[in-house]
Protein backbone atom coordinates (compact mmCIF):
# COMPACT_ATOMS: atom_id res chain seq x y z
CA UNK A 1 0.00 0.00 0.00
CA UNK A 2 1.65 3.15 -1.17
CA UNK A 3 0.60 5.43 1.67
CA UNK A 4 2.08 3.04 4.18
CA UNK A 5 5.37 2.97 2.41
CA UNK A 6 5.48 6.70 2.14
CA UNK A 7 4.72 7.23 5.81
CA UNK A 8 7.21 4.72 6.93
CA UNK A 9 9.79 6.28 4.70
CA UNK A 10 9.15 9.48 6.55
CA UNK A 11 9.78 7.73 9.79
CA UNK A 12 12.96 6.33 8.35
CA UNK A 13 14.24 9.66 7.33
CA UNK A 14 13.54 11.30 10.63
CA UNK A 15 12.79 9.96 14.03
CA UNK A 16 9.50 11.19 15.30
CA UNK A 17 10.08 11.08 18.99
CA UNK A 18 6.90 11.35 20.87
CA UNK A 19 7.96 12.22 24.38
CA UNK A 20 6.26 10.80 27.41
CA UNK A 21 3.38 12.94 28.57
CA UNK A 22 3.28 14.83 25.32
CA UNK A 23 0.25 15.46 23.21
CA UNK A 24 1.40 14.92 19.66
CA UNK A 25 -0.82 15.53 16.68
CA UNK A 26 -0.70 14.30 13.12
CA UNK A 27 -2.62 16.74 11.02
CA UNK A 28 -3.76 16.23 7.47
CA UNK A 29 -6.64 15.75 5.11
CA UNK A 30 -7.81 12.65 3.30
CA UNK A 31 -5.09 10.69 1.62
CA UNK A 32 -2.48 11.99 4.03
CA UNK A 33 -2.01 8.55 5.48
CA UNK A 34 -2.56 9.69 9.04
CA UNK A 35 -5.20 7.06 9.80
CA UNK A 36 -3.00 4.30 8.42
CA UNK A 37 -0.22 5.60 10.61
CA UNK A 38 -2.49 5.38 13.62
CA UNK A 39 -3.42 1.80 12.77
CA UNK A 40 0.24 0.90 12.55
CA UNK A 41 1.06 2.49 15.86
CA UNK A 42 -1.73 0.52 17.45
CA UNK A 43 -0.47 -2.59 15.67
CA UNK A 44 -3.67 -3.16 13.82
CA UNK A 45 -1.69 -3.14 10.60
CA UNK A 46 1.93 -4.04 10.28
CA UNK A 47 4.30 -1.62 8.59
CA UNK A 48 5.61 -2.63 5.19
CA UNK A 49 9.05 -1.44 6.13
CA UNK A 50 10.62 0.71 8.81
CA UNK A 51 10.76 0.53 12.57
CA UNK A 52 8.74 1.51 15.55
CA UNK A 53 10.02 1.88 19.06
CA UNK A 54 8.13 2.18 22.30
CA UNK A 55 9.93 3.11 25.49
CA UNK A 56 13.24 2.38 23.85
CA UNK A 57 12.27 -1.14 22.81
CA UNK A 58 11.72 -2.06 19.19
CA UNK A 59 8.20 -3.26 18.67
CA UNK A 60 7.82 -3.33 14.90
CA UNK A 61 7.47 -7.06 14.60
CA UNK A 62 6.54 -7.97 18.13
CA UNK A 63 4.81 -11.29 18.54
CA UNK A 64 3.33 -13.48 21.22
CA UNK A 65 4.00 -12.28 24.73
CA UNK A 66 5.71 -9.12 23.56
CA UNK A 67 2.69 -8.28 21.46
CA UNK A 68 0.43 -8.85 24.43
CA UNK A 69 2.44 -6.49 26.56
CA UNK A 70 2.49 -3.99 23.76
CA UNK A 71 -1.26 -4.05 23.42
CA UNK A 72 -1.67 -3.25 27.04
CA UNK A 73 0.51 -0.21 26.64
CA UNK A 74 -0.89 1.20 23.41
CA UNK A 75 -4.59 1.63 22.81
CA UNK A 76 -6.59 3.25 20.05
CA UNK A 77 -9.81 5.23 19.94
CA UNK A 78 -11.58 5.54 16.62
CA UNK A 79 -13.53 8.29 15.01
CA UNK A 80 -16.99 6.93 14.59
CA UNK A 81 -18.49 6.22 18.00
CA UNK A 82 -21.33 4.31 16.40
CA UNK A 83 -19.29 1.57 14.81
CA UNK A 84 -16.78 1.25 17.63
CA UNK A 85 -19.21 -0.51 19.91
CA UNK A 86 -20.88 -3.81 19.06
CA UNK A 87 -24.59 -3.02 18.99
CA UNK A 88 -25.39 -6.51 20.27
CA UNK A 89 -23.33 -6.35 23.42
CA UNK A 90 -24.11 -4.60 26.66
CA UNK A 91 -21.80 -1.89 27.90
CA UNK A 92 -20.69 -4.17 30.68
CA UNK A 93 -19.82 -6.89 28.26
CA UNK A 94 -17.92 -4.49 26.00
CA UNK A 95 -15.89 -3.09 28.86
CA UNK A 96 -15.13 -6.46 30.34
CA UNK A 97 -13.32 -7.68 27.25
CA UNK A 98 -9.90 -6.20 28.03
CA UNK A 99 -10.11 -7.55 31.56
CA UNK A 100 -11.13 -10.97 30.34
CA UNK A 101 -8.18 -11.19 28.00
CA UNK A 102 -5.44 -9.76 30.13
CA UNK A 103 -6.38 -10.35 33.73
CA UNK A 104 -7.87 -13.12 35.75
CA UNK A 105 -10.27 -11.09 37.80
CA UNK A 106 -13.43 -12.63 39.14
CA UNK A 107 -16.75 -11.44 37.82
CA UNK A 108 -17.33 -9.30 40.87
CA UNK A 109 -13.89 -7.72 40.69
CA UNK A 110 -14.39 -7.01 37.01
CA UNK A 111 -17.65 -5.33 37.76
CA UNK A 112 -15.95 -3.07 40.25
CA UNK A 113 -13.22 -2.19 37.81
CA UNK A 114 -15.77 -1.41 35.13
CA UNK A 115 -17.66 0.81 37.55
CA UNK A 116 -14.46 2.67 38.27
CA UNK A 117 -13.79 3.10 34.56
CA UNK A 118 -17.24 4.53 33.99
CA UNK A 119 -16.68 6.94 36.81
CA UNK A 120 -13.41 8.13 35.38
CA UNK A 121 -15.16 9.11 32.15
CA UNK A 122 -18.03 10.74 34.01
CA UNK A 123 -20.66 8.19 33.15
CA UNK A 124 -23.20 6.68 35.54
CA UNK A 125 -22.83 3.06 36.58
CA UNK A 126 -26.46 2.47 35.57
CA UNK A 127 -25.32 2.31 31.97
CA UNK A 128 -23.80 -1.13 32.41
CA UNK A 129 -26.76 -3.28 31.35
CA UNK A 130 -27.68 -1.04 28.44
CA UNK A 131 -26.91 -1.39 24.78
CA UNK A 132 -24.96 1.13 22.72
CA UNK A 133 -28.09 1.99 20.76
CA UNK A 134 -29.49 3.72 23.81
CA UNK A 135 -26.52 6.03 24.19
CA UNK A 136 -25.78 9.40 22.64
CA UNK A 137 -22.72 10.02 20.49
CA UNK A 138 -20.85 11.65 23.33
CA UNK A 139 -21.61 8.83 25.71
CA UNK A 140 -20.52 6.24 23.16
CA UNK A 141 -17.25 7.98 22.68
CA UNK A 142 -16.69 8.02 26.42
CA UNK A 143 -17.27 4.27 26.48
CA UNK A 144 -14.66 3.84 23.76
CA UNK A 145 -12.31 5.91 25.87
CA UNK A 146 -13.10 3.90 28.96
CA UNK A 147 -12.35 0.70 27.09
CA UNK A 148 -9.04 2.11 25.94
CA UNK A 149 -8.13 3.03 29.52
CA UNK A 150 -9.04 -0.34 31.01
CA UNK A 151 -5.53 -1.75 30.96
CA UNK A 152 -3.75 1.39 32.13
CA UNK A 153 -2.05 2.11 28.85
CA UNK A 154 0.79 4.54 28.47
CA UNK A 155 -0.06 5.72 24.98
CA UNK A 156 -3.42 6.50 23.48
CA UNK A 157 -3.72 6.86 19.74
CA UNK A 158 -6.86 8.76 18.85
CA UNK A 159 -8.18 9.07 15.31
CA UNK A 160 -10.50 12.06 15.09
CA UNK A 161 -12.13 11.27 18.43
CA UNK A 162 -14.47 14.24 18.36
CA UNK A 163 -15.18 14.91 14.69
CA UNK A 164 -18.49 13.09 14.69
CA UNK A 165 -19.79 14.90 17.76
CA UNK A 166 -21.70 18.11 18.22
CA UNK A 167 -19.62 21.06 19.19
CA UNK A 168 -20.97 21.36 22.74
CA UNK A 169 -20.24 17.69 23.37
CA UNK A 170 -16.86 17.88 21.70
CA UNK A 171 -15.69 20.48 24.15
CA UNK A 172 -16.56 18.24 27.08
CA UNK A 173 -14.77 15.26 25.61
CA UNK A 174 -11.67 17.32 24.92
CA UNK A 175 -11.62 18.55 28.50
CA UNK A 176 -12.06 15.00 29.67
CA UNK A 177 -9.09 13.95 27.58
CA UNK A 178 -6.96 16.65 29.13
CA UNK A 179 -8.04 15.60 32.64
CA UNK A 180 -7.40 11.94 31.97
CA UNK A 181 -3.97 12.70 30.60
CA UNK A 182 -3.06 14.47 33.76
CA UNK A 183 -4.67 11.94 36.03
CA UNK A 184 -3.10 8.86 34.50
CA UNK A 185 0.10 10.29 33.09
CA UNK A 186 -0.75 9.39 29.53
CA UNK A 187 0.85 10.26 26.25
CA UNK A 188 -1.44 11.11 23.39
CA UNK A 189 -1.11 10.82 19.66
CA UNK A 190 -3.94 12.76 18.09
CA UNK A 191 -4.88 12.29 14.48
CA UNK A 192 -7.11 14.97 13.10
CA UNK A 193 -7.79 17.54 10.44
CA UNK A 194 -9.25 20.08 12.85
CA UNK A 195 -6.62 22.74 13.37
CA UNK A 196 -8.57 24.61 16.03
CA UNK A 197 -8.60 21.55 18.23
CA UNK A 198 -4.93 20.97 17.61
CA UNK A 199 -4.03 24.52 18.56
CA UNK A 200 -5.64 24.08 21.95
CA UNK A 201 -4.73 20.52 22.79
CA UNK A 202 -1.42 19.55 21.25
CA UNK A 203 2.13 20.32 22.17
CA UNK A 204 3.71 19.35 18.89
CA UNK A 205 2.31 18.71 15.49
CA UNK A 206 3.35 16.97 12.30
CA UNK A 207 1.61 18.17 9.16
CA UNK A 208 1.15 15.35 6.68
CA UNK A 209 0.35 15.37 3.00
CA UNK A 210 -0.01 12.28 0.82
CA UNK A 211 1.85 10.06 3.19
CA UNK A 212 4.72 12.35 4.00
CA UNK A 213 5.37 14.65 6.89
CA UNK A 214 6.03 18.05 5.40
CA UNK A 215 6.34 20.14 8.52
CA UNK A 216 7.07 19.33 12.14
CA UNK A 217 7.35 21.51 15.19
CA UNK A 218 5.90 22.86 18.40
CA UNK A 219 2.28 23.84 17.90
CA UNK A 220 2.84 27.45 18.69
CA UNK A 221 5.72 27.73 16.25
CA UNK A 222 3.86 26.09 13.42
CA UNK A 223 0.82 28.28 13.89
CA UNK A 224 2.71 31.53 14.33
CA UNK A 225 5.31 30.90 11.66
CA UNK A 226 3.96 28.33 9.21
CA UNK A 227 6.70 27.41 6.78
CA UNK A 228 5.36 24.97 4.24
CA UNK A 229 2.93 26.33 1.62
CA UNK A 230 0.52 23.53 2.45
CA UNK A 231 0.56 24.41 6.12
CA UNK A 232 -0.23 27.98 5.20
CA UNK A 233 -3.13 26.88 3.01
CA UNK A 234 -4.40 24.58 5.74
CA UNK A 235 -4.34 27.36 8.29
CA UNK A 236 -6.01 29.81 5.97
CA UNK A 237 -8.81 27.33 5.36
CA UNK A 238 -9.84 27.08 8.99
CA UNK A 239 -13.40 28.34 9.33
CA UNK A 240 -12.94 30.60 12.31
CA UNK A 241 -15.71 31.89 14.46
CA UNK A 242 -14.36 35.06 15.98
CA UNK A 243 -12.90 38.16 14.50
CA UNK A 244 -9.75 37.99 16.65
CA UNK A 245 -8.97 34.62 15.18
CA UNK A 246 -9.13 35.98 11.66
CA UNK A 247 -6.24 38.27 12.37
CA UNK A 248 -4.05 35.37 13.41
CA UNK A 249 -4.50 33.54 10.13
CA UNK A 250 -2.09 33.86 7.25
CA UNK A 251 -3.38 35.61 4.17
CA UNK A 252 -6.11 33.84 2.33
CA UNK A 253 -5.04 30.97 0.11
CA UNK A 254 -7.51 29.11 -2.02
CA UNK A 255 -6.01 25.95 -3.42
CA UNK A 256 -6.99 24.97 -6.91
CA UNK A 257 -7.28 21.39 -7.95
CA UNK A 258 -8.06 18.28 -6.02
CA UNK A 259 -6.07 16.26 -3.55
CA UNK A 260 -4.34 13.67 -5.70
CA UNK A 261 -5.03 10.04 -5.11
CA UNK A 262 -2.49 8.35 -2.84
CA UNK A 263 -2.10 5.58 -5.35
CA UNK A 264 0.50 6.96 -7.68
CA UNK A 265 2.46 9.33 -5.55
CA UNK A 266 5.28 10.76 -7.62
CA UNK A 267 8.76 10.93 -6.18
CA UNK A 268 8.84 14.70 -6.29
CA UNK A 269 7.36 16.90 -3.60
CA UNK A 270 3.82 15.57 -3.08
CA UNK A 271 2.32 19.05 -2.88
CA UNK A 272 3.75 20.22 -6.14
CA UNK A 273 0.53 20.03 -8.15
CA UNK A 274 -1.35 22.47 -5.93
CA UNK A 275 1.46 24.57 -4.56
CA UNK A 276 1.22 28.27 -5.26
CA UNK A 277 4.83 28.91 -4.33
CA UNK A 278 6.39 26.24 -6.47
CA UNK A 279 9.66 26.64 -8.27
CA UNK A 280 11.42 24.84 -11.07
CA UNK A 281 13.56 22.84 -8.71
CA UNK A 282 10.48 21.34 -7.08
CA UNK A 283 9.51 19.58 -10.26
CA UNK A 284 12.95 18.37 -11.13
CA UNK A 285 14.18 16.95 -7.87
CA UNK A 286 12.95 14.30 -5.52
CA UNK A 287 11.07 15.18 -2.38
CA UNK A 288 13.20 17.56 -0.32
CA UNK A 289 14.72 16.50 2.97
CA UNK A 290 13.93 18.00 6.33
CA UNK A 291 15.49 21.32 7.05
CA UNK A 292 15.58 22.69 10.58
CA UNK A 293 14.62 26.31 10.11
CA UNK A 294 14.43 27.15 13.80
CA UNK A 295 14.98 24.98 16.85
CA UNK A 296 12.58 22.11 16.83
CA UNK A 297 10.78 23.38 13.74
CA UNK A 298 11.45 21.39 10.59
CA UNK A 299 10.10 21.60 7.07
CA UNK A 300 10.49 19.77 3.78
CA UNK A 301 10.45 22.47 1.18
CA UNK A 302 13.00 23.74 -1.30
CA UNK A 303 12.34 27.33 -0.26
CA UNK A 304 14.27 26.68 2.90
CA UNK A 305 17.09 24.65 1.50
CA UNK A 306 20.35 26.08 2.82
CA UNK A 307 22.56 23.99 0.58
CA UNK A 308 21.88 23.80 -3.09
CA UNK A 309 23.43 20.88 -4.91
Amino acid at each position, binding site marked *: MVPEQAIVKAVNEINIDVKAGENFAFVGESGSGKTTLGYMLARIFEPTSGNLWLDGKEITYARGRELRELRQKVQ*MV*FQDPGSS*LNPRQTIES*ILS*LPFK*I*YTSLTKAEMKKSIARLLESVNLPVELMPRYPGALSGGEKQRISLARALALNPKLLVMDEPTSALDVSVQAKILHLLVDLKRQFGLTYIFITHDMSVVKNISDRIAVTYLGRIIELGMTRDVFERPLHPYTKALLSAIPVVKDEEKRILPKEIILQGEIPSPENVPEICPFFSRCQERQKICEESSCPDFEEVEKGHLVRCYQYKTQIN
Partner: protein
Amino acid sequence: MKEEKQVRKEGVVRGIIKISRNKLSVAGAIFLLVAILLAIFAPWVSPYPEDAYDSVNFGEQLQPPGLKHIMGTDEAGRDVFTRVLYGARISLLLAVVVLSISISIGIPLGICAGYYGGRIDQVIMRMTDVTCAIPALVLALAISVALSPNLFNCMLAIGFVWWRGFCRIAYGETLSVKQENYVLISKSLGASNGHIIFREILPNLTSSLTVKTSLDAGYAILVGTSISFLGAGANPPTPEWGLMVASGRHYLPDAWWASLFPGLAIFATVLSFNLLGDGLRDYFGVEVE
Protein backbone atom coordinates in the same frame (compact mmCIF):
# COMPACT_ATOMS: atom_id res chain seq x y z
CA MET B 1 -30.37 -4.94 38.36
CA LYS B 2 -33.84 -3.53 38.51
CA GLU B 3 -32.80 -1.19 35.77
CA GLU B 4 -31.86 -4.08 33.57
CA LYS B 5 -35.21 -5.82 33.89
CA GLN B 6 -37.04 -2.58 33.29
CA VAL B 7 -35.01 -1.93 30.17
CA ARG B 8 -35.68 -5.41 28.85
CA LYS B 9 -39.38 -5.20 29.53
CA GLU B 10 -39.66 -1.88 27.77
CA GLY B 11 -37.83 -3.29 24.80
CA VAL B 12 -40.14 -6.26 24.53
CA VAL B 13 -43.27 -4.15 24.82
CA ARG B 14 -42.12 -1.79 22.11
CA GLY B 15 -41.23 -4.74 19.94
CA ILE B 16 -44.65 -6.25 20.33
CA ILE B 17 -46.38 -2.99 19.50
CA LYS B 18 -44.25 -2.57 16.44
CA ILE B 19 -44.89 -6.05 15.16
CA SER B 20 -48.63 -5.79 15.84
CA ARG B 21 -48.87 -2.97 13.36
CA ASN B 22 -48.47 -5.44 10.55
CA LYS B 23 -51.88 -7.08 10.69
CA LEU B 24 -51.13 -9.72 8.11
CA SER B 25 -48.08 -11.05 9.82
CA VAL B 26 -49.93 -11.12 13.11
CA ALA B 27 -52.63 -13.17 11.40
CA GLY B 28 -49.93 -15.50 10.12
CA ALA B 29 -48.42 -15.82 13.57
CA ILE B 30 -51.76 -16.59 15.17
CA PHE B 31 -52.56 -19.22 12.58
CA LEU B 32 -49.23 -20.89 13.16
CA LEU B 33 -49.74 -20.86 16.87
CA VAL B 34 -53.10 -22.54 16.46
CA ALA B 35 -51.64 -25.02 13.99
CA ILE B 36 -48.82 -25.92 16.36
CA LEU B 37 -51.20 -26.38 19.24
CA LEU B 38 -53.52 -28.51 17.17
CA ALA B 39 -50.61 -30.56 15.96
CA ILE B 40 -49.32 -31.18 19.45
CA PHE B 41 -52.71 -32.10 20.80
CA ALA B 42 -53.92 -33.91 17.68
CA PRO B 43 -54.51 -37.25 19.38
CA TRP B 44 -56.82 -35.55 21.85
CA VAL B 45 -58.45 -33.00 19.61
CA SER B 46 -59.17 -35.03 16.54
CA PRO B 47 -62.56 -36.74 16.37
CA TYR B 48 -61.36 -40.06 14.99
CA PRO B 49 -57.76 -40.62 16.06
CA GLU B 50 -57.95 -44.24 14.96
CA ASP B 51 -58.37 -43.04 11.38
CA ALA B 52 -55.00 -41.34 11.37
CA TYR B 53 -53.04 -44.24 9.97
CA ASP B 54 -54.22 -47.66 9.23
CA SER B 55 -57.94 -48.11 9.33
CA VAL B 56 -60.38 -48.99 6.68
CA ASN B 57 -64.09 -48.27 6.81
CA PHE B 58 -65.44 -49.27 3.48
CA GLY B 59 -68.87 -48.31 4.54
CA GLU B 60 -67.83 -44.69 5.03
CA GLN B 61 -65.83 -44.23 1.84
CA LEU B 62 -65.76 -40.81 0.26
CA GLN B 63 -68.47 -39.25 2.34
CA PRO B 64 -68.91 -35.53 1.62
CA PRO B 65 -68.29 -33.05 4.43
CA GLY B 66 -71.09 -33.14 6.92
CA LEU B 67 -71.86 -33.19 10.57
CA LYS B 68 -70.21 -36.52 11.23
CA HIS B 69 -67.06 -35.78 9.26
CA ILE B 70 -66.53 -32.06 8.89
CA MET B 71 -64.04 -32.52 6.11
CA GLY B 72 -65.55 -35.65 4.73
CA THR B 73 -63.83 -39.03 4.38
CA ASP B 74 -61.19 -40.30 1.98
CA GLU B 75 -61.15 -43.40 -0.24
CA ALA B 76 -60.52 -45.70 2.70
CA GLY B 77 -63.28 -44.18 4.77
CA ARG B 78 -60.93 -42.29 7.05
CA ASP B 79 -61.87 -38.91 8.49
CA VAL B 80 -60.09 -36.24 6.52
CA PHE B 81 -60.09 -33.70 9.32
CA THR B 82 -58.28 -36.06 11.67
CA ARG B 83 -55.71 -36.86 9.03
CA VAL B 84 -55.17 -33.20 8.29
CA LEU B 85 -54.44 -32.58 11.95
CA TYR B 86 -52.01 -35.46 12.11
CA GLY B 87 -50.52 -34.24 8.88
CA ALA B 88 -49.72 -30.98 10.63
CA ARG B 89 -47.54 -32.92 13.02
CA ILE B 90 -45.60 -34.42 10.19
CA SER B 91 -45.12 -31.24 8.23
CA LEU B 92 -44.16 -29.14 11.21
CA LEU B 93 -41.78 -31.86 12.34
CA LEU B 94 -40.30 -31.85 8.88
CA ALA B 95 -39.76 -28.11 9.08
CA VAL B 96 -37.99 -28.47 12.41
CA VAL B 97 -35.77 -31.32 11.26
CA VAL B 98 -34.87 -29.70 7.96
CA LEU B 99 -34.06 -26.36 9.50
CA SER B 100 -32.05 -27.93 12.29
CA ILE B 101 -29.92 -29.83 9.81
CA SER B 102 -29.44 -26.91 7.49
CA ILE B 103 -28.65 -24.42 10.22
CA SER B 104 -26.16 -26.68 11.92
CA ILE B 105 -24.36 -27.27 8.66
CA GLY B 106 -24.84 -23.96 6.89
CA ILE B 107 -24.13 -21.39 9.59
CA PRO B 108 -20.77 -22.72 10.79
CA LEU B 109 -19.63 -23.20 7.21
CA GLY B 110 -20.74 -19.72 6.23
CA ILE B 111 -19.08 -18.07 9.20
CA CYS B 112 -15.83 -19.93 8.66
CA ALA B 113 -15.79 -19.05 5.00
CA GLY B 114 -16.44 -15.40 5.74
CA TYR B 115 -14.12 -15.08 8.70
CA TYR B 116 -11.07 -17.00 7.59
CA GLY B 117 -11.28 -16.18 3.94
CA GLY B 118 -8.67 -17.46 1.53
CA ARG B 119 -8.71 -21.12 0.65
CA ILE B 120 -11.39 -22.02 3.14
CA ASP B 121 -13.64 -19.35 1.69
CA GLN B 122 -13.09 -20.59 -1.84
CA VAL B 123 -13.71 -24.23 -1.05
CA ILE B 124 -16.85 -23.68 0.96
CA MET B 125 -18.39 -21.12 -1.31
CA ARG B 126 -17.72 -23.13 -4.45
CA MET B 127 -19.44 -26.10 -2.84
CA THR B 128 -22.34 -23.85 -2.05
CA ASP B 129 -22.47 -22.49 -5.57
CA VAL B 130 -22.60 -25.99 -6.98
CA THR B 131 -25.52 -26.99 -4.83
CA CYS B 132 -27.24 -23.70 -5.58
CA ALA B 133 -27.19 -24.48 -9.26
CA ILE B 134 -29.75 -27.21 -8.84
CA PRO B 135 -33.28 -26.36 -7.74
CA ALA B 136 -34.05 -27.51 -4.23
CA LEU B 137 -36.93 -29.69 -5.18
CA VAL B 138 -35.08 -31.52 -7.93
CA LEU B 139 -32.02 -32.18 -5.83
CA ALA B 140 -33.98 -33.28 -2.78
CA LEU B 141 -36.09 -35.51 -4.95
CA ALA B 142 -33.02 -37.12 -6.41
CA ILE B 143 -31.45 -37.71 -3.03
CA SER B 144 -34.64 -39.04 -1.56
CA VAL B 145 -35.14 -41.51 -4.37
CA ALA B 146 -31.53 -42.58 -4.19
CA LEU B 147 -31.80 -43.23 -0.48
CA SER B 148 -35.02 -45.21 -0.92
CA PRO B 149 -38.09 -43.11 -0.57
CA ASN B 150 -39.57 -42.72 2.83
CA LEU B 151 -40.44 -39.80 5.03
CA PHE B 152 -37.28 -39.84 7.06
CA ASN B 153 -35.02 -39.91 4.05
CA CYS B 154 -37.08 -37.17 2.51
CA MET B 155 -36.40 -34.96 5.52
CA LEU B 156 -32.70 -35.73 5.39
CA ALA B 157 -32.58 -34.99 1.69
CA ILE B 158 -34.20 -31.60 2.03
CA GLY B 159 -31.98 -30.76 4.99
CA PHE B 160 -28.86 -31.53 3.00
CA VAL B 161 -30.04 -29.33 0.20
CA TRP B 162 -31.18 -26.49 2.36
CA TRP B 163 -27.97 -25.58 4.11
CA ARG B 164 -26.72 -23.57 1.14
CA GLY B 165 -29.07 -20.68 1.79
CA PHE B 166 -28.00 -20.36 5.39
CA CYS B 167 -24.39 -20.66 4.43
CA ARG B 168 -24.71 -17.78 2.00
CA ILE B 169 -26.41 -15.53 4.44
CA ALA B 170 -23.98 -16.30 7.23
CA TYR B 171 -21.13 -15.71 4.79
CA GLY B 172 -22.37 -12.34 3.62
CA GLU B 173 -23.13 -11.05 7.09
CA THR B 174 -19.84 -12.29 8.49
CA LEU B 175 -17.98 -10.46 5.75
CA SER B 176 -19.64 -7.20 6.54
CA VAL B 177 -19.47 -7.46 10.32
CA LYS B 178 -15.84 -8.50 10.15
CA GLN B 179 -14.91 -5.04 8.91
CA GLU B 180 -16.71 -3.07 11.54
CA ASN B 181 -14.59 -1.04 13.89
CA TYR B 182 -15.62 -2.96 16.96
CA VAL B 183 -14.25 -6.17 15.53
CA LEU B 184 -10.98 -4.44 14.66
CA ILE B 185 -10.78 -3.14 18.19
CA SER B 186 -11.41 -6.53 19.70
CA LYS B 187 -8.69 -7.92 17.48
CA SER B 188 -6.35 -5.17 18.49
CA LEU B 189 -7.07 -5.99 22.11
CA GLY B 190 -5.91 -9.49 21.33
CA ALA B 191 -9.26 -11.28 21.46
CA SER B 192 -9.14 -14.86 20.25
CA ASN B 193 -10.82 -15.90 17.03
CA GLY B 194 -13.32 -17.90 19.02
CA HIS B 195 -14.36 -14.90 21.01
CA ILE B 196 -14.76 -12.77 17.93
CA ILE B 197 -16.83 -15.36 16.11
CA PHE B 198 -19.15 -16.19 18.96
CA ARG B 199 -19.40 -12.94 20.85
CA GLU B 200 -18.95 -10.30 18.17
CA ILE B 201 -20.08 -11.74 14.86
CA LEU B 202 -22.70 -14.33 15.68
CA PRO B 203 -24.98 -12.03 17.72
CA ASN B 204 -25.20 -9.74 14.71
CA LEU B 205 -26.46 -12.56 12.55
CA THR B 206 -29.49 -13.40 14.65
CA SER B 207 -31.98 -11.07 13.05
CA SER B 208 -31.40 -12.18 9.49
CA LEU B 209 -31.26 -15.81 10.59
CA THR B 210 -34.57 -15.51 12.37
CA VAL B 211 -36.22 -14.03 9.32
CA LYS B 212 -34.76 -16.64 7.03
CA THR B 213 -35.77 -19.47 9.32
CA SER B 214 -39.34 -18.33 9.33
CA LEU B 215 -39.54 -17.90 5.58
CA ASP B 216 -37.72 -21.13 4.91
CA ALA B 217 -39.94 -23.16 7.18
CA GLY B 218 -42.74 -22.50 4.77
CA TYR B 219 -40.72 -23.41 1.70
CA ALA B 220 -39.36 -26.52 3.32
CA ILE B 221 -42.86 -27.74 4.01
CA LEU B 222 -43.79 -26.99 0.44
CA VAL B 223 -40.85 -29.00 -0.87
CA GLY B 224 -41.59 -31.84 1.53
CA THR B 225 -45.21 -32.12 0.56
CA SER B 226 -44.27 -31.90 -3.11
CA ILE B 227 -41.85 -34.78 -2.78
CA SER B 228 -44.45 -36.87 -1.04
CA PHE B 229 -46.97 -35.93 -3.67
CA LEU B 230 -44.58 -37.27 -6.28
CA GLY B 231 -44.31 -40.49 -4.35
CA ALA B 232 -40.73 -40.13 -3.25
CA GLY B 233 -41.44 -39.23 0.33
CA ALA B 234 -43.96 -40.42 2.84
CA ASN B 235 -45.56 -43.74 2.10
CA PRO B 236 -49.20 -44.68 2.65
CA PRO B 237 -50.88 -44.89 5.07
CA THR B 238 -48.99 -41.93 6.58
CA PRO B 239 -51.31 -38.93 6.85
CA GLU B 240 -48.96 -36.61 5.06
CA TRP B 241 -50.59 -33.70 3.29
CA GLY B 242 -48.86 -34.11 -0.04
CA LEU B 243 -49.59 -37.79 -0.07
CA MET B 244 -53.22 -37.13 0.75
CA VAL B 245 -53.51 -34.69 -2.15
CA ALA B 246 -51.98 -37.29 -4.43
CA SER B 247 -54.32 -40.10 -3.39
CA GLY B 248 -57.34 -37.88 -3.53
CA ARG B 249 -56.49 -36.81 -7.06
CA HIS B 250 -58.05 -39.86 -8.58
CA TYR B 251 -61.46 -38.95 -7.22
CA LEU B 252 -61.57 -35.39 -8.45
CA PRO B 253 -63.81 -33.58 -9.15
CA ASP B 254 -66.57 -35.58 -7.54
CA ALA B 255 -64.96 -36.22 -4.20
CA TRP B 256 -63.19 -32.89 -4.13
CA TRP B 257 -62.78 -32.80 -0.36
CA ALA B 258 -60.17 -35.56 -0.18
CA SER B 259 -57.60 -33.44 -2.02
CA LEU B 260 -58.84 -29.98 -1.28
CA PHE B 261 -58.54 -29.90 2.50
CA PRO B 262 -55.00 -31.20 2.75
CA GLY B 263 -54.14 -28.81 -0.09
CA LEU B 264 -55.68 -25.91 1.82
CA ALA B 265 -53.73 -26.93 4.88
CA ILE B 266 -50.48 -26.75 2.93
CA PHE B 267 -51.43 -23.42 1.45
CA ALA B 268 -52.44 -21.87 4.76
CA THR B 269 -49.37 -23.09 6.61
CA VAL B 270 -46.89 -21.98 3.99
CA LEU B 271 -48.64 -18.65 3.63
CA SER B 272 -48.57 -18.09 7.37
CA PHE B 273 -44.86 -18.74 7.56
CA ASN B 274 -44.35 -16.31 4.72
CA LEU B 275 -46.45 -13.61 6.33
CA LEU B 276 -44.71 -14.06 9.62
CA GLY B 277 -41.34 -13.98 7.92
CA ASP B 278 -42.27 -10.83 6.01
CA GLY B 279 -43.36 -9.16 9.20
CA LEU B 280 -40.16 -10.14 10.95
CA ARG B 281 -38.15 -8.92 8.02
CA ASP B 282 -39.79 -5.51 8.21
CA TYR B 283 -39.36 -5.42 11.94
CA PHE B 284 -35.68 -6.25 11.91
CA GLY B 285 -35.05 -4.26 8.80
CA VAL B 286 -32.89 -6.88 7.16
CA GLU B 287 -32.68 -7.86 3.53
CA VAL B 288 -33.30 -11.53 3.21
CA GLU B 289 -34.94 -13.21 0.31
